[in-house]
């Protein structure tokens, strides 16, 4: 009722149409509500409203043992589970000074990069839905991307037994070692995906409608991106080479050669381009990791119950950050000497990236509002935590 009165006030006093986009809307990528003020079809003001998917991950962490938490973090950003648990285990390993075997670091890189590919394919596919709707060319792109993503997930399934929430990372290493044919299957996938990425690029980047819809739309300037703490493809699309894999290497990233794809002006097209180029880079990182894979154990400790619970020293603090497909995903842990974290803070990339919309939406048409939101690729599990 309150919302209704608010809408009437906007319409009477300002002569604008108040459009309540979401929380149930096909293009909000989850449960997200945008209060749009429209003049004609032009957005003049937008009030984002988040929190519909709040699951209290941070508070929940204070009630669980360290070894029980990586699976919880996999559910945080539900498009790249291993990146989340990786951030958490990195923070805890720093906190308790646990050594990680080199092979485990390599395996972490492999799974994280495979899931980056899967996540970017989802981002590009759903971006197609935003631009072309569920009853047209957009679905074609969407289904192509999901078909290829399923191949990546099949690989994860044969590696870990679960196609999505893999439980791969644990404190002190990884849970599963490779099986004999894994490298061969990854190479097949690499060949398959490289060809298809070329196909998609030629399909989209020569399509005048796609270019018209994405070029010079939703421009994020470098200053704006820095001011809002944007990261991931959103900041790299503006031309700032900020990538934690390069600037602050974690796990085994220091040992691989890879490029950081950059955009030029930071519009919707650049964000798409950065993502699709990153797929190729990820494939190259995975193949490098498989070639140089060291022998040895995959974990330095087993997750244990009761008797030997992991108890980091009292008062210790640690921050572990990874480059998730959406940007800088950080976990800050404070220990009080017990087996449970005293406080845990999650720095989610989707949250900071999403904050940009109140700056870049006004002045665009409703159709572009959807495209811009899609290009930021927010995951609402990650935004609301």
């Amino acid at each position: 009722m309150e919302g209704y009165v608010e809408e009437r006030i906007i319409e009477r006093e300002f002569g604008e149409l108040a459009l309540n986009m979401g929380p149930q809307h096909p293009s909000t990528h989850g449960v997200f509500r945008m209060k749009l003020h429209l003049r004609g079809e032009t957005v003049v003001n937008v009030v984002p409203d988040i929190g519909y998917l709040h699951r209290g991950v941070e508070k929940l962490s204070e009630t669980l043992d360290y070894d029980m938490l990586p699976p919880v973090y996999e559910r945080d950003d539900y498009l790249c589970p291993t990146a989340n648990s990786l951030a958490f285990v990195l923070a805890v390993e720093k906190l308790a000074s646990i050594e990680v075997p080199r092979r485990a670091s390599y395996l972490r890189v492999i799974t994280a990069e495979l899931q980056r590919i899967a996540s970017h394919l989802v981002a590009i596919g759903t971006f197609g839905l935003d631009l072309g709707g569920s009853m047209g060319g957009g679905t074609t792109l969407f289904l192509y991307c999901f078909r290829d993503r399923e191949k990546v997930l099949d690989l994860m399934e044969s590696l870990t037994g679960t196609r999505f929430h893999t439980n791969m990372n644990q404190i002190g290493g990884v849970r599963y070692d490779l099986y004999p044919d894994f490298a061969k299957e990854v190479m097949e996938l690499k060949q398959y995906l490289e060809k298809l990425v070329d196909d998609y690029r030629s399909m989209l980047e020569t399509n005048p409608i796609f270019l018209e819809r994405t070029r010079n739309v939703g421009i994020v300037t470098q200053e704006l991106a820095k001011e809002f703490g944007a990261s991931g493809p959103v900041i790299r699309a503006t031309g700032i080479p900020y990538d934690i894999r390069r600037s602050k290497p974690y796990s085994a990233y220091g040992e691989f050669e890879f490029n950081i794809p950059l955009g030029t002006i930071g519009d919707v097209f650049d964000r798409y381009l950065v993502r699709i180029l990153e797929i190729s880079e990820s494939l190259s990182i995975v193949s490098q990791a498989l070639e140089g894979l060291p022998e040895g154990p995959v974990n330095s400790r087993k997750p244990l119950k009761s008797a030997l619970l992991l108890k980091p020293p009292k008062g210790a603090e640690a921050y572990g950050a990874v480059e998730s497909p959406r940007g800088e995903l950080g976990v800050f842990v404070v220990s009080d000497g017990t087996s449970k974290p005293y406080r845990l803070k999650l720095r989610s990339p989707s949250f900071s990236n999403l904050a940009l919309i109140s700056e870049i939406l006004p002045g665009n048409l409703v159709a572009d509002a959807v495209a811009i939101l899609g290009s930021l690729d927010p995951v609402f599990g990650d935004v609301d935590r």
Partner: protein
Amino acid sequence: MIFIMGFLESAILLGAVIGIVAYLTWLERKFSGRMQSRIGPYLVGRPHGWLQPIADGLKLISKEDIVPAKADGLLFNFAPAWILVVSLLGFAFLPITANWVLVNMDLGLLYFTAFGSLIVIGVFTSGWASNNKYALLSSLRSAAQIVAYEVPLLFSLLVPAILAGSLDFMDIIRAQKGYWFITFPVIGQISFLIFLLASLAESNRMPFDLSEAESELVAGFSIEYSGMKFAYFYLGEYVHLLAVSLLVSILFFGGPLGPILPGGVWITIKTMAVFLGILWIRWSFLRVRIDQLMMFNWKILTPVSFIVLLLAGLWVNLKAGM
């Protein structure tokens, strides 16, 4: 007697059109499925889900008919019926074979386009009567779009009419005995393209389905409709699309003309080819934005259609002078 015959004939035509349209939705689903590396309907009726349209029809008929509390009841119920009826009426003037047409009149082309442009009234009414903001935005879009695209649509239609020297479909078909109008250098191809694009825009198809626009306006003007009323919109859209395909095959591809096979077979083949072309466009393009749509119309399609019309008139005049 004449009355009864006319009644029977129109009943047969009506039934045939609706039956064909039901199976066109099946065709579209199979076709889009193949394009998207999936199978499409498969389980309802082997082989290949041939009972799917009937199952869908039964489902839609048996659904609850919901009228929102704040909707304008009368207009809300009137709009879907209007769309279906007006779309179906267009068929009365289209020749199905070389010597059979329900209503044969000198101005068949004019009547057909007149009925085609009446559809927008139904769309606009439904958007207004739904009392929903998405529906309202969508109906505004659709009104702007159809008014704009009428201009190039009509001008491109006039090119075959000028070349044939008549607005009567029969005369247009007869004039194509020597060559199909699509093969007429430059003018034929350009006016064909303009007509195809403009009629896609008029019948709200991809990439111009801005009034449906699920990604931003959810489902646009049909957002509040359910059950059979929703099906009326769907049916109306496909009937209009079939009419457009038929019209293209008559105006540019010589309709029933062709070697060996009888006229009915030729016109079916041509209509289906055009229809599949439209489906191909639909499932491979993204949607344009409303301002781009308008720019495209007023800056490119309309001037080009003027020029093509002028050239066609000039050629006919010169030929008559010689």
